[in-house]
């Protein structure tokens, strides 16, 4: 019996791999479809709610061409809701931002800016605000904090990003630190 690639991967115990090149048999429903032939497939987790459904992303020439439920995922077994099913339109969408935008004080419109300039300016604002508002002590207690800076968000970021943001904020002395858990 000819094994599909997906069955082979399961049998061979290659179960930690997440990205596969070529062939579409990873998707149970699509072993012979021309739409996906030769596409590179990788697994992902839905960015919407907290169920954590698995999806398979197919890409050709570095462009996403299809996203659907991961049939091996134990929670959703290939199924998705409308949002998960629509994830393709997050990956391929003309409304996505591709450039740094900057709005000057009192400005009426966005202006484009290079990353280099933006990062330099942001770092400057961070440092100046930190230095200007830093509190070393509250009474006799060392508090070493920066009330001038706040950071919000994180529930849409990866764990590694959340951790790094948590570390980043605390190294700067930020205590106005919140994410979507409280709203």
């Amino acid at each position, binding site marked *: 019996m000819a094994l599909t690639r997906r069955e082979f991967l399961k049998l061979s115990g290659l*179960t930690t791999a*997440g990205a596969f090149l070529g062939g579409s048999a990873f998707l149970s429903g699509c072993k012979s479809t021309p739409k996906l032939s030769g596409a590179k497939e*990788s697994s992902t*987790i839905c960015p919407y709610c907290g169920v*954590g459904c698995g999806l398979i*992303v197919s890409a050709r020439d570095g462009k*996403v061409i299809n996203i659907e439920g991961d049939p*091996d995922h*134990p929670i*959703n077994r290939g*199924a998705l*809701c*409308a949002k998960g099913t629509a994830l393709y*339109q997050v*990956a391929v969408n003309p*409304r*996505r*931002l591709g450039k*740094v*935008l900057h*709005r000057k004080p*009192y400005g009426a419109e966005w202006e484009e800016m290079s*990353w280099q300039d933006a990062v330099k*300016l942001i*770092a400057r604002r961070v440092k100046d605000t930190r230095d*200007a*508002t830093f509190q070393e002590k*509250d009474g006799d207690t*060392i508090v*070493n904090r920066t*009330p*001038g*800076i*706040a*950071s*919000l*968000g*994180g*529930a*849409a*970021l*990866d*764990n590694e*990003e*959340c*951790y790094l*943001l*948590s*570390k*980043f904020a*605390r*190294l*700067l002395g930020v*205590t*106005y630190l*919140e*994410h*979507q*858990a*409280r709203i």
Partner: protein
Amino acid sequence: MTNHWIDLKNADVILMMGSNAAENHPASFRWILKAMEERDAKLIVVDPRVTKSASLASLYAPLRPGTDLAFLGGIISYAMEKNRIQKEYVLEYTNASYLVNPQYGFNDGLFSGYDPGKRNYGDRKSWTYQLDANKIPKRDKSLNDPQCVYQLLKKHYSRYTPEKVEAITGCPKETFLKVADIFTSTHKPDRVATIMYAMGITQHTVGTQNVRGFSILQLLMGNMGLAGGGINALRGESNVQGSTDHGLLFHILTGYMPAPTAKNHPNLAAYNKSQPQTSDPMSINWWSNRSKYLVSMLKAWFGDAATKKNDFGYDWIPKVSKPAPYMVLFEDMLKGIIKGTFLMGTNPIVGGPNSNRGGQALEKLDWLVAVDLWETESSIFWKRKGANPAQIKTEVFLLPAASSVEKEGSVSNSGRWAQWRYKAQNPPGTAKADLDIIDMIFREVRSLYKKEGGKLPEPILKAVWDYIHKGEHEADPHIVAKEINGYIWSDKDQMESFMDLKDDGSTACGNWIYCGSYPGKNMMARRGTGEGPGSIGMYPEWSWCWPLNRRIIYNRAAVNRKGEPWDPERAVVKWTGSKWKGDVVDGGPKLGPDKKNPFIMNNEGVGRLFAPGSALADGPFTEHYEPMESPTVNTMNSQKVNPAAQIMEGVAGQFSNPGQYPYIGTSYRVVEHWQAGAMTRNLPWLNECMPSMFCEISPSLAKAKGIKNGDRVKVFNGRGNVSAYALVTERVQPMNVNGRAVEMIGLIWHFGQGGAATGDAANLLTPTIGDANTMIPEYKAFLVDIRKEA
């Protein structure tokens, strides 16, 4: 979630309250329907509306928004009255038999120790146990002592009669009694109920106590730790679990360690001294290990610069002097205290309460850095309706971010599974992963401090911050994941378990609860499809779950003192006399159930029917109070609103009264959109299904106001106006409250004025008032009026 999504299939009863999972967590219904089909499980949905979840329920019970505690109090009372509790479990695994301080009292809605001037329970010394000579809580295992928790509980909840429940909640008594009967049928050891909740429970001035109500019930029924049981918070974002785990909140560091406060933790010794203590040999008291986790985190952050001599850099992390939850943060922004803000994939102008005030607050900033996939209402707040950009000083940077399929990393679902994702394409244009953005900004700030010096440069200059491989330009999430997991400082060997963490600086670990996620191999990327022990759907080789890949937490409570599972058919763990089998057992593998108590995160080791000490701001038992904005009076006690809910100065005069605004407003979501909308209102397929802002009203309110289905209406109160379509539906009906019919207006809150599909934000109407413990805003019950638009 104490349990996980697939575990729903093991339940006999599913109580869904404050959640509309069919709409907001659709995949859960695969497992709920499986339980209903294969186990004849009963799904009970308690909700103000007939929701999609309610349409699939075995039993639907209506309730007025903000009255969950009257309803839950009624079930607790029913269970005590009819003696429908799991006695052995209650006696062994809860504090039912513990004796409470005789000074403890409760009178007319107030617990002992209330300070009316400060509106708080400043003195919670009476909310404690009586201790014996060894400082172990005294117990009366006969449960007869009037000061034992069991008796106090029985007395407290006896006031919640079915008649009271009906009068307060609007749920007919007969229906309520059916709910109580079905739910408490799980007091039998081999019947299990699970509870699913979401923001319908938490977004109240009594949000935390609502969850406490669940805890009390699940402990009385003996449903914690069991397959098909537990208390399951359904997370609304893909990584709101992870962002909480990693301490992105003012009050916690990574792994739920408290953020240092100036008052309680002035130095490392004080911090460590404040960790929970116990004298009870039966108690594992896991938090007694906290110092190891903190020092290991400091070591991961400061490396060689973290030494015993400098308290491992403890003073370099900030201490708070006052709680600064979201609403306080925005009030302080409005006051001009905060000068600059980062918005990382968040849209507070749509998602935060009292949006007009939120917009005014952003105008006070000198600078704002928004990192997102799209323009959001918050990043273009300076263009919003009614704002004049020429008068807004704020400098705004909008940095384009990579989407979830354009970078690598992990996210943690509600069941605490950390699952790895891969990169499938490059992000559009010059967009970058948030990880790179944070890394770039930090390195640039560091280079400025190196060049110029400045205030306390040490934490910035001395931090371990090296996430880019030689010759590359982008931060590698694997390096970060390894730091989170932890390693031996000396040889950089990755660690396997937080049991090996030390408080002497020899180990570094970014987040102790993730220790074991990347012990050399990336466990989060695993794709093993075996169901695992007991065929109860734990899938132990699929991804990785904190802590230590434990799929059901508090699983020591799944067996009796002899180690036999309460239900052998659904065994989570069992004790063979010498070792544990099944799921990774809680609290270490060596000691059996006869030697240690199961609730390892409580210092007494048992579940808390009575929450002692300073665990809660607003009482050791639950009590019904009306929402801040309510159409009626509180008939349970003379307190109108939760007496410990903090009312902020700036908004004290802003609350609506029922004379002016007679209808209950409440907010919720629909399946086609997500949160504040940027991730869905820009997608044509989803906008096709759900293109417009709308509100739901009953046919009777529609008739009274001359509104037809599909008319444009204005919903308004003193804080704002929302223009919407009216969906007139039988699914919404007036509630009979204290003898009077009260109408409700339900609003979806996804919309805002940016993106491809636009509409008014429901949060223009919501109040700046929140839960006494968490300060999550009271989005689910406020007052409004409605009229047909001309």
